[in-house]
């Protein structure tokens, strides 16, 4: 319906505007960029199965190190971006107006989701493209792998954001929303590390269920896999659907 699309765009605009209005968004972006750059130059990726040296140590013109770190960085970044989305509306009572305006629950859920997703896309671009430009100046950079990695990271972020937003809708306090979704995303990330100590059947299931395994072995290496797209999109849809159920269900509270 066109009006639903219209109201969704207005929610999107407001959410995005609110992010640019506040200093916290700028802070988050700067911290994220600094950490990503620091890890890339100095530490490499000495964690888990995907062992990679830092730029200075390895002397390889590739952004694989950054992409390998992104899932763990998302564990901190995404809950920080999503925690307020619903919890703040509840805490300040503004949702009482939001849900008495002629807006459907679905439109407001989607508006908020796309606003965070769009913002995160900007953060990714701002943090990673300068690295790519610099590395391309030093050596022969595979731009296809860079954009493939960015696209994969963006998809992964979408899945994480929809889960985080759903968790934010369950809480009134932003801190609780942040901690619970950081905990959940952290557990999913660490599942990849624990696979070796699990029984094989369980390890397989955990491996396929974790959003990160749909990133490490493909997009992070510059490979684009259609199955990953389907996986992430279904996760997003599931998260947004639960989110809509929760916020619309509050009317029966």
């Amino acid at each position, binding site marked *: 319906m066109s009006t639903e699309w219209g109201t969704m765009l207005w929610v999107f605009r407001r959410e995005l*505007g609110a992010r640019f209005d506040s200093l916290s968004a700028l802070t988050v972006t700067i911290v994220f960029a600094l950490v990503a750059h620091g890890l890339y130059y100095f530490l490499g990726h000495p964690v888990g199965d995907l062992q990679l040296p830092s730029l200075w140590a390895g002397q390889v013109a590739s952004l694989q190190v950054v992409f390998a770190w992104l899932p763990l960085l998302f564990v901190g970044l995404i809950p920080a971006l999503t925690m307020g989305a619903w919890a703040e509306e509840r805490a300040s009572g503004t*949702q009482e107006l939001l849900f008495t305006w002629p807006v459907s629950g679905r439109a407001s859920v989607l508006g908020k989701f796309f606003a965070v997703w769009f913002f995160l896309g900007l953060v990714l671009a701002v943090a990673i493209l300068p690295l790519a430009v610099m590395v391309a100046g030093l050596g022969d950079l595979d731009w296809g792998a860079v954009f493939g990695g960015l696209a994969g990271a963006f998809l992964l972020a979408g899945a994480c954001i929809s889960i985080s937003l759903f968790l934010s809708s369950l809480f009134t306090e932003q801190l609780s929303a942040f901690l619970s979704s950081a905990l959940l995303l952290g557990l999913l990330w660490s599942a990849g590390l624990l696979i070796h100590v699990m029984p094989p059947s369980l390890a397989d299931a955990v491996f396929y269920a974790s959003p990160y395994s749909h990133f490490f072995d493909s997009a992070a290496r510059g490979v684009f896999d259609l199955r990953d797209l389907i996986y992430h999109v279904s996760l997003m849809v599931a998260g947004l659907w639960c989110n809509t159920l929760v916020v619309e269900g509050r009317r029966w509270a």
Partner: protein
Amino acid sequence: MNMIHVQGLEKSYGNLEALKGVSFDVERGEIVGFLGPNGAGKSTTMKILTGYLVPDSGSCRVAGIEVTPGDPSSRRSVGYLPESTPLYRGMRVDRYLDFVAGIHGQDRAERRASVGRVIEACRLGRHAGRRIGWLSKGFRQRVGLAQALLGNPDVLILDEPTSGLDPREVVRMRDLILELGKEKTVLLSTHILSEVEATCSRVIVIAGGQLVADATPFEIARSRAAELTVVLRVPSDQIQGFDAAAIGRDFAHVPGVARLVSAEDCGGGTARLVLDVNRAPGSVATSGEPVAEMVADALAKRGWKLSELTWQGDDFEAAFLEITDPERIALVGPLVREQPFLAEELEELTEPILSTRTPRSGDAPTGGNK
């Protein structure tokens, strides 16, 4: 046409029964005061009317549209100002209002027109470029009202629009509501009883989740009127053998009078009688003023002149306390008039209160009436 129709609303929060079957109607163009002690269920009723909450049972219609969860169409006809005025404090006033207009599906030209209109109506002009969080409580309240007006709704639901405002702002808000009431149907909740008398043509009172009164402010105030003072003068040929006490005893038998409190001989054939009419049958003035009329008739029949007829305890606040008293509710039931209100009648009934009411101690210092 009924602009608000509420039928048998019930709502519980866990074990707490917030509403136990509330029904009422509000006609087009009425300003109705929605009163009740804290926790009576006022806000819950308003949240149900605006579609924010779904009742356990019962139904409501706003502007003829059934309030249905998941269907925003009834919400288009309602402007709502919640109790705590929750606004996005980080936004500028004009951008916030533009956003709300956009949410209501208005295009660019419509938005410009409607935002301009509500900024004008709520006198927000000088503050349009400021952040909402920086405004004083009074101006935030005006922004809250402005957003409620943006969709040009037929029905306004205002939950304590004057709470926390200084007396000057209270008067401004009251004037604004009176102005809006000329075109819109307004349901407003408040704890400031003088405000109800000044703005509302009708009052709905709930207590403990039940309707306890549905009448005009005048009738509610009069419902408690405990004593009727009658000063009468007998014709000169009857001054001989004048006995105030005997006259008083005579009046104790007038229908509606419970007993004679005092009878005083003021000299010159004038007697001052104080009659207790409280709780006497027919004394609750739900159908005019039967007691006063009966007394006047009794005087006329005897050929006596009426010099003064005064109600004592004609006090809205005291009446409110009494009708929301659980014991009284159990004893006499709700104060609801039997016949429907007529528009002319409402005008007539509220007029004296609006124009001639003398300021009382409970009023705001600047609280003149328009």
